[in-house]
């Protein structure tokens, strides 16, 4: 019965604040796949990805009061939260640090290959598309989106002015927008 229900974001926020089982069911049904997709772009080990998904849901559940609609949509908030949780996990495992040392010629497909357990889906689809971008865009999207570098860190690591990092990121996003707008 509840499967056919659809909630607006405002309704869902209210529902989540009530912390009911229904709210969880709805949240999981509609968002788990998207969040898991984002997470598996960052951490490719399945076991770790599962942990991150769980952590992300618990955070959403416990911090829903902190969500501020003026700052963006619930969806965006959840996507960023999931991505940041994944990046934190990656950093705590030291993988980012390794990557940082090798930085300068981030090879997206390589970094994928070095990980042991690949998730057998088209998880690398986005990475593939990103790797089709111009190299100077690709590296920025990779660092910002998949590895969680701050703009400042990207600017310093690549030795590119902060303003250029931002405009390149916009160009990359424009291109991706084109690719994904059905």
């Amino acid at each position, binding site marked *: 019965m509840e499967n056919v229900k659809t909630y607006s974001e405002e309704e869902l926020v209210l529902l989540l604040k009530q*912390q009911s*089982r229904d709210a*969880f069911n709805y949240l*999981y049904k509609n968002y*788990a*796949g*998207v969040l*898991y*997709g*984002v997470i*598996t*772009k960052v951490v490719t080990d*399945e076991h770790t990805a*599962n942990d991150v*998904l*769980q952590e992300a*849901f*618990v955070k959403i*559940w*416990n911090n829903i009061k902190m969500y501020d609609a*003026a*700052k*963006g*949509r619930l*969806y*965006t908030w959840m*996507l*960023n939260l999931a991505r*940041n949780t994944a990046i934190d996990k990656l950093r705590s495992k030291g993988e980012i640090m390794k990557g940082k040392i090798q930085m300068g010629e981030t090879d997206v497909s390589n970094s994928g290959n070095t990980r042991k357990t690949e*998730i057998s*889906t*088209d*998880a690398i*689809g*986005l990475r593939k598309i990103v790797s089709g971008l111009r190299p100077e865009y690709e590296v920025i999207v990779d660092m*910002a*989106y998949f590895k*969680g570098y*701050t*703009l*400042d860190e990207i600017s310093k690591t690549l030795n590119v002015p902060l*303003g250029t*990092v*931002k*405009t*390149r*990121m*916009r160009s990359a*996003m424009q291109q*991706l*927008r084109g690719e*994904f*707008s*059905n």
Partner: protein
Amino acid sequence: MDIAAYIESGNLEAFVLGILPETEMAQVQAYIARYPELAKEAAAIEDALLNIAMAEAVTPPPEMKDKIWGAIQAKATPHLEISDKEAAEKQGALILPLSPNMRHTRFSQAAVWAALVGSLALNTMFWYQNSQQKKESLAMNTRMDSMQNNQQKLLAVVDNYTKGKNMMADNDMQTIVMHTVLKGHPMAATLYWSKDKAEAYVMMDGLPEPPKGMQYQLWVMQDGKPVDMGVLPNTMANTALIQKVGKPVGRGEAFAISLEKEGGVPSPTMENIYVMGKS
């Protein structure tokens, strides 16, 4: 504000991704609230990211749903009261029935431990605070002492200068500089003499500290004969301290200081007269 240029700057993308510093996030948010064109573009970027995310959705392993719900429950239940059994059951939490007895023992044990640990912690904290305060107050006392010492010294100096100033201001005050009488030994002392009042003050800033067991003695020459004016404290030697001469001195042709054995002598040892000055 150039809206088009702002859009091209890439700030909105960074904002949507949440990767700007806190202050800039707030700034972009304010711009978005103010300029509808920016809000529209930001929404388009959000859409794009959502589209990408949806296109890339991956179904989690089926067991994850229950696992996550369990984790949420585990984190959500601790605030429940023990007595709130019904509510806990509604939430689907596992309730272990405890016999009243067991419950009692466990809770009282736990309470005792908690109290003990708490009290130990407090004791340690207070002991530490106390010892810190003692240390601090000791240090403070030492500082106060040294400040008081310094103050007394300064007061003495000021007092001395005041005396000196008053003396100088006295028109009748005569200054007699006593010069060395020992060749090759540059020494000097000063005597301030108010003949009318029969008062004299002496300063031994140009005399070395006397050796142990010796003391300076002041003489006034009256009718060619030295008259004892008293011994001078050793602490005055080589300082600018001024001391009033203990005996009245209404007349005299000259003043002299000799080094004598401690306590003084009735008549000066001639070869030990260090300085002399005529009035």
